């Protein structure tokens, strides 16, 4: 709370300004994103929700510096994004871990600038944080899908980034593991306050995790609506408010409530 009871808004971390993306094809270029504007506050958890293939991953790749937008700007901390940067780490579906490195080796991957002692300390801390203690010397192929995903999150957190980009990180997991991973992510987020941009096509996932849900339209993707999920954590998945928000998003995405 600021002076005289007025809430001081958190500073912007990620600012997306009029970002459009067209991919060249044989015929006319395919338009993927049209004029996206989004302001993500420092420490905020934003879910980008949209149907498969709508271009939400493209947006995340532009913000992450892996793709260059056809027009528009992305600013992080006021600086334009020109390429990938270790201060903001991208987490892929489990395939992103290095299969030739052990759990320890993967977590250590981004820490090559640190001293041996500091590196060991970080490894131990993040292996423990994601619940992989005892598996330090295991190779990824010896881990389950959920454990590989934890490993990737640990590797990302170990370099102490300010922003995490997660591109459908739990999409390849079974539904039970997915639920466990969501509460794990929220637990980790309480321990390490990061700004998180999370791309998903799962409505429940977005209502369970996000502070705000950005609903995207089908291709060419534009922002249809931004929904505040003002529920405190832990969220009760059977509370009327949860169901109300979920139904609102269902409707916004254009789906019926019955199967």
């Amino acid at each position, binding site marked *: 709370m600021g002076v005289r009871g007025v809430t001081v808004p958190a500073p912007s971390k990620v600012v997306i300004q009029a970002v459009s993306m067209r991919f060249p094809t044989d015929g006319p270029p395919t338009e993927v994103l049209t004029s996206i504007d989004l302001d993500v506050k420092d420490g905020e958890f934003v879910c980008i929700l949209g149907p498969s293939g709508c271009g939400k991953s493209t947006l995340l790749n532009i913000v*992450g510096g*892996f793709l260059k937008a056809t027009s528009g700007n992305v600013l992080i901390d006021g600086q334009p994004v020109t*390429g*990938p*940067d*270790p201060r903001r*780490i*991208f987490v*892929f579906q489990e*395939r*992103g871990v*290095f*299969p*030739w*490195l052990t759990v320890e080796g993967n977590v250590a*991957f*981004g820490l*090559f600038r640190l001293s041996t002692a500091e590196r060991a300390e970080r490894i131990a801390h993040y292996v423990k944080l994601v619940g992989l203690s005892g598996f330090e010397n295991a*190779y*990824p*192929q010896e881990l389950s899908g959920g454990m590989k995903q934890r490993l990737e999150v640990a590797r990302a957190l170990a*370099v102490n980034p300010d922003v995490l980009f997660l591109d459908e990180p739990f999409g390849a997991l079974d539904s039970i593991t997915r639920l466990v991973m969501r509460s794990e992510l929220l637990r980790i987020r309480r321990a390490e306050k990061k700004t998180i941009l999370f791309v998903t096509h799962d409505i429940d996932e977005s209502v369970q995790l996000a502070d705000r849900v950005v609903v995207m339209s089908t291709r060419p993707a534009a922002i249809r609506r931004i929904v505040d999920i003002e529920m405190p954590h832990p969220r009760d998945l059977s509370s009327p408010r949860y169901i109300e928000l979920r139904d609102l998003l269902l409707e916004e995405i254009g789906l019926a409530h019955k199967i």
Partner: protein
Amino acid sequence: MKRLLPFSAVAALVAVWFLAAHRQTSGLFPDPAQVLLGLVELFRRGLLAKYVVASLYRVSWGYLLAVVTAIPIGLLLGWYRRGEQALNPLLQLLRPISPLAWIPIGILWFGVGDMAAIFLIFLASFLPLTVASMNAVRNVPPTLLRAGRNFGLSNRRLLTGVILPASLPQLIVALRISLGVAWLVVVAAEMIAVNSGLGFLIVDARNAGNRYDLVVAGMVMIGLIGLVLDVSIRQLEKMKALKWGYGA
């Protein structure tokens, strides 16, 4: 029981060989026992060890030279697309030329001796290894490259820390195949370019009075050593850090 199957196949072959040798009319083709005696004779005269060492010496040098040059060159070519575009047609043009076709050139450049044979083995392993390393880079999953870039790796670090390890499973298959080729080529090279080694033994034994027992003895040694080389290099595939590449 399963482990005995290969041995029974060898035993069957020896039996057929024995029968065939005793039904021939020319009398030149040796039976298994004569070949065994031939091997003993070579061993007693000190030629067996000498020739095996000579052949392995040439293969080692030619093959190792190819490995240390082809892998870095192939990885760089795969990494810098321009390089690949420039050199790939040339590589594809040289590749179908059998290393044996180079024998006259090898002798012209290096004379009759070890160097000519080493040159041929180098050529035979260099081209397939270069092409395989180039392709291996192209098959590195893009997510892994992007992860590497995301952590701020320099190009050099990316090459040694991501591209090389991600290519290793494919490289090891290529190493194994090219070692087999190198062993095939050394025998052929020795028939022409030098006067020692197992290839020389085969030609020499025939020329020096139709000693077909020694010819076959040389063939048996070539097969056995080739088998040992293959089994040894296969051990690399069992490394734990590589297992991911073999679907294990």
